[in-house]
């Protein structure tokens, strides 16, 4: 019991790390959850951000902006500086900056050569999003000019063009698997970073402190048997881990406004499996006779690399082939894979192999860690 209690006394020194990683994880989760995407069950047009400066203010330019706003998010370019707009295009918050020159509408209606009066579109030349918006503009203006040439007045032609372009009944989604991308997936997808960093920054250094040479020698001559001491440390580490996991699951469930549904249980099972694997990883690392001070650096490297390569921060489908190959050796990759399967309607049997691979990783790493630890101990004895 003394060792068990001491664990928590030492843990108090690391409460700041715990709070810090909890705040970082929840902050990122909160911001990401506000950008939730839709599923793929039905077709929808991908919305882009566009900064528009309308120097024309004609019926034509207003109609064009109205049409673009039915698909995209329009921002008034005058509200931002040039540098801010460049920043937003670079960081893909905007796809285009559009400048509609004065006299554009009149030239368009007169059928004049619009070469001198084109809409200026600035975009990241390589990005597809910018082309998408430019295609929408050209399509709208070409169809509108067709209706105008057909004898309809501007108001009628704009109405007919809007109605015509809003009709996407010719598109059908043929995917066998329909993805429903709800908030719960975005939020739980990010949790492994919190689990990894909190366990590595709080539990690992405490275990390492108990294993430090001086403390170990003093413990060895105490009346507490080694086995009892190790069980107490393991129990205390387990209690801390369970508390962290429960706290994160509770917060994530509150944020996603979903709990105790069928898929919630599967997601929680996936997270608990990953947490167990991370605990085994912590046990393995704690056997490597490292100094407690290195745990901060270790936490950073493990937290970030496991998260990036495991598809926690960036979806797996975006990763390069090299990253995917390396990622398959990490438990976070199989956590993400299980999340994808749950997202596409998979049940327990569909995610079972993902859970087993995570556990296998943990058992293997822990085994290697224990053997390495014994070798190190023999060498230093």
């Amino acid at each position, binding site marked *: 019991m003394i060792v068990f209690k001491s664990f928590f006394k030492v843990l108090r020194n690391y409460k700041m790390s715990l709070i810090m990683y909890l705040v970082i994880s929840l902050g990122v989760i909160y911001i990401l959850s506000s950008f939730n995407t839709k599923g793929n069950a039905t077709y929808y047009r*991908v919305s882009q951000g566009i900064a528009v400066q309308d120097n024309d203010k004609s019926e034509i330019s207003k109609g064009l902006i109205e049409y673009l706003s039915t698909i995209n998010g329009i921002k008034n370019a005058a509200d931002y500086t040039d540098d801010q707009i*460049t920043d937003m295009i*670079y960081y893909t918050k905007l796809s285009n900056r559009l400048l509609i020159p004065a006299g554009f509408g009149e030239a368009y209606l007169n059928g004049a050569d619009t070469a001198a009066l084109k809409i200026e579109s600035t975009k990241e030349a*390589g990005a*597809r*999003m910018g082309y998408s918006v430019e295609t929408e503009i050209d399509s709208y203006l070409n169809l509108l000019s067709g209706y105008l040439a*057909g004898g309809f007045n501007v108001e009628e032609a704009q109405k007919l063009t809007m109605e015509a372009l809003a009709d996407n009944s010719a598109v059908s989604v043929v995917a066998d698997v329909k993805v429903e991308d709800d908030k719960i997936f975005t939020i739980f997808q990010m949790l492994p970073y919190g689990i990894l960093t909190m366990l590595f920054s709080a539990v690992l250094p405490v275990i390492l402190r108990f294993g430090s040479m001086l403390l170990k020698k003093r413990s060895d001559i105490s009346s507490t048997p080694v086995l009892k001491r190790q069980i107490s440390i393991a129990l205390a580490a387990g209690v801390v881990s369970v508390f962290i996991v429960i706290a994160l699951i509770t917060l994530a469930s509150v944020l996603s406004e979903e709990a105790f549904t069928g898929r919630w249980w599967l997601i929680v099972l996936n997270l608990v499996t990953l947490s167990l694997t991370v605990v085994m990883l912590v046990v393995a690392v704690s056997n490597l006779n490292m100094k407690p*001070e290195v745990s901060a650096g270790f936490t950073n490297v493990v937290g970030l690399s496991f998260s990036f390569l495991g598809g926690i921060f960036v979806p797996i489908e975006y990763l390069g082939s090299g990253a995917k190959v390396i990622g398959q050796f990490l438990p976070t990759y199989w956590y993400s894979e299980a999340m994808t399967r749950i997202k596409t309607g998979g049940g327990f049997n569909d995610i079972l192999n993902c859970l087993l691979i995570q556990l296998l990783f943990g058992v293997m790493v822990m085994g290697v860690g224990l053997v390495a630890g014994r070798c190190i101990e023999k060498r230093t004895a």
Partner: protein
Amino acid sequence: MFINVFKAQLKLGFRNKSNVFWTLMFPIILGTLFKITFGNIYSEYKSESIKTAVVFETDNEDVKSTTKAYLEGLEMDGHKMLDISYMDYDSAVALLKDDEQVNGIISVKDDGRLSLDINSNGVLSTIQETITTIYNQNVGLIEKVAAEHPENLPAVIQTISGRAEYINAHSLAGDNKDPFVSYFYNLLAMTALFAALNSVRIGNNCQANMSTLGARTNASPLSRMTFQAAGFFAAYIVQTAIIFVGLTYMLFGIKINFGGDIPLIYFTTALASFLGTALGFAIGNLGSFAIEKKESILVGITLTGCALSGLMYGDMKVIITEKAPIINKINPAAVISDSYYCLNMFGAGSRYFMTLMYMLILSAVLIALGLFMGRRNHYDSI
């Protein structure tokens, strides 16, 4: 005396193996992993012709040739918009479902209309849908005009066949427009701020009640200011040397294109390291408590700052700029990563020099804070 202390502190800095190891390993390990993770994303995200399967569900040769001419004639910025393969529907569906080897199937119907099958939503599907819809709506336009204003039909057909372009496209200025390079900026910012872990000890090393070295320093005739200045510059040189090795690995080892002039990238990194050292100096002089706690505060500031500047989620910085721009002005990680970004996108212009000024001002404030707090410590007289 300054030189003696400086030399001793320099040795201390280089012999702090744990600190040297981690500061060097961050850019090397994480830089390599970032390179593996983000290396191909931008090239796939860039605009290319969209792989499209076209299926003719009609034997009408006029319809076939008209749609063929329309689809093959679509261009954007000098390259074909669609990369078309003609095949039967079953083969096309197989390709669409097999890891999306084509992005969509355009079927040409008997009535001259087009339909589109896609596997998932996205920018490419939206472009294909716009192409399909506009073609169908041109058919609808002709039907409508033929019914209501038949006299205008030739004019309408002429308008459709002479499809005009209304866009004058410009490319965003800048050297490397890959948004994923910002992860490397933030990684370098984190490494630079971890320079603080080397300078944080200076504060404790001149407080008599915090370390044995502090007691000996206080007992010596050496002025506290000299000790602190020598310690600060030694820590700065150690950290700058380490971070330069990491930067060289990123620039020439894994060939990350930061954008901008390479000497200026090194200059910016040297200033970033100065800011990191200043941060550690300020925290080191913050009150009389254990160095481990001060290190925890530093790691907290660094990681929170890096998270807010986009280390975990690249768009975070621009979100903060929109919602609370002041945070990006005082967040050292954001200031550092912004300086690399400005050098890349705007060159060595006013905005870049502004970020350098921010770094210098922040550093000056932190050093002044450290000196002020460091000289306020008094001990009971015996």
